[in-house]
C-alpha cells in the first residue's frame, strides 16, 4: 500500500516546508501593503509586491468549518477513517486546511479552539491541528 501523500516543495514553498521540519508554521507578510497570506507565493496576491517577509504564527486558531470523512479518496487514507478535515482560521488572519488530530471526531465543532501540531510524513513534517491542551 502506498503511503499518504508527502508535500513536494517548490521555490515558492521551500522556506515554509523547511520551517515545518523545525515545527514552525510561517506565513508571508507584505512589506508594501501589510497583507498576510497563506499559502506561500512569489508575490503578494493583494498588491503584487515581491517584498514579502516570513512571519511565524502563534499556533492558535479556530475551526471555521469541518467534515468527518467516512470514504477515503485513496487507499492511503483508509486506515485513518473516520478522520476530520477542517479549515482552520489562524489567529493571524489566514486560513489553512488541516486534519484535527488527537480528538474524538464527535467533539469537533465550528468555532472550536485548536493549536498547531506537526505530523511526520516521510522526511517531511506537515502542519496539523489538535484541540487546545487543557491546563
Amino acid at each position, binding site marked *: 500500500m502506498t503511503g499518504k501523500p508527502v508535500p513536494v516543495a517548490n521555490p515558492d514553498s521551500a522556506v515554509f516546508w523547511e520551517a515545518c521540519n523545525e515545527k514552525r508554521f510561517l506565513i508571508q507578510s507584505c512589506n508594501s501593503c501589510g497583507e498576510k497570506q497563506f*499559502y506561500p507565493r512569489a508575490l503578494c496576491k493583494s498588491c503584487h509586491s515581491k517584498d514579502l517577509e516570513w512571519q511565524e504564527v502563534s499556533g492558535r486558531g479556530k475551526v471555521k*468549518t469541518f467534515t468527518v470523512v467516512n470514504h477515503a479518496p*485513496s487507499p492511503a487514507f483508509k486506515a485513518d477513517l473516520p478522520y476530520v478535515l477542517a*479549515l482552520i482560521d489562524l489567529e493571524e488572519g489566514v486560513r489553512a*486546511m488541516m*486534519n484535527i488530530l488527537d480528538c474524538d471526531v464527535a467533539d469537533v465543532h465550528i468555532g472550536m479552539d485548536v493549536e498547531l501540531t506537526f505530523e511526520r510524513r516521510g522526511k517531511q513534517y506537515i502542519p496539523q491541528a489538535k484541540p487546545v491542551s487543557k491546563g
Partner: protein
Amino acid sequence: MKKAIITGAYDTDVGELPGSSCMGLHADAALGAIADAGLNKSDIDGVLCAYSFTEPHLMLSSVFCEYMGLQPKFNAAIVVGGATACIMVMQAASLVESGQCRNVLVVTGDNRLTGMAKGGAVATLAKVGHGQFEHPYGMSVPAAYALVATHYMNEYGVTSEQLASISVTAREHAMMNSKAHRQTPITIEDVLNSRMIASPLHVLDCCLISDGGAAIVVSAADSGGDRPKTSIEIMGTGQGHTHEHIMAAPSLSDFGCKQAARTAFERAGVTAKDIDVAEIYDSFTITLLVELESIGFFERGEAGPACLDGALKIGGRLPCNTHGGLMSYGHSGAAGGMFHVVEAVRQLRHEAEGRQVEDSQLAFVHGDGGILSAHCSLVLGRV
C-alpha cells in the same frame, strides 16, 4: 454583432456503457448534434472540446478533429471543471457573434465509469485539491463540498432533510426520463440512511459517475440552412471566478455564481423571476442549494424549505434539473454539464417528452467547476 443560436443538441446513451470509448462517445454526440442541426460535416468551421479522464491529452480537441476527419478554422480545448460546458457555449457564442465562425461544434464525452478502475474517477477528481496544502490531508471532492455544507447548515439552518429533498426531486425527474442512469424511486429516508461519505453528505447527496457524451452546435443566426428544429437563442452569458482551492475561497456562503448569473441576466435583459426552467449544476445537494440562493432564485435560507415543499419539481415554482441532473440522470465529466445544456434546449423546443415544463420560453443553465470555484451562466430563449 451577429446573434448566436443553438441549432443542434444531442446526448448519447448515459450510464454504464461497456465497450464505449472517450472518442467514440465524442463522435456519437457530435454526429447527433450535427444531424439535429440539419448540417453536414463540411458546415462545421469551429470545434470546442473539453477534457477526458480515460483518454487524457494535451490537445484533446486536435485529437478529436483528427479522429473525425475535421479541419476547422477554429479549434480549442477548454478545461474549467464542471463550468466547462457552459464556458464552451459562451465561447462558441463569441466566435459566431464576432463572425469568426458560422457553425461551432461543442462536444464532450467520457467513459469514466467503465473506462477506469473502481475508485479511479474519485482519486483523479481529488487532484483538484492543492498538491501541497490540501491533497496531503485526504481531501476528496465530496469532503471539500462537505466543508461548505457544514458551514452553510450552521449559518442558515439548512437541514439534512432539506438537502435530501433535492436528491429526491432529481430522482423523481429521472423517473420521467427513460434515458436516465438511475430511475429507482428513493425517499428522503433513503437518502438520510444511505452511506455517509463526508458528513453531512451521504452517498445519495452525491452525483453519479457515468459514461456518456453530449454535444451542441452553435450557429450564427444568419448562417442559413434548413434548420429542422426550433432554434434557441443564446440571450445572455456570464462568468464568475473567486478561487480554485476551497482553503482560499474568500467566502463560504457567496461564490462566483452570483456574478455569473447577474451578468447573464443583465445581458439577456431578464431577471431570475422570468425564468421558466432551470438546469443548474448539482454535483452535490449542497451545490444546488448554495447556487439557488446565491444566484437569487431564493432568499438566503429559503431554498431548503422551498425544495422540501416541491418548488423545484416540474409544475413547481422553479422546475429544476428536469432531466434528473448529475445526481440521477448522469455525470460524465464535462458532458455532465453539457447534459444540462441539452436538456434546456429540449425544454425550450417543447420536446422533453414526459417531463415537459408547460410553455417554457426562457431557460437558465449554470455550470460550477472545482469547489464552487469557477462559474458560468447561460440564459437561453425560444426564438
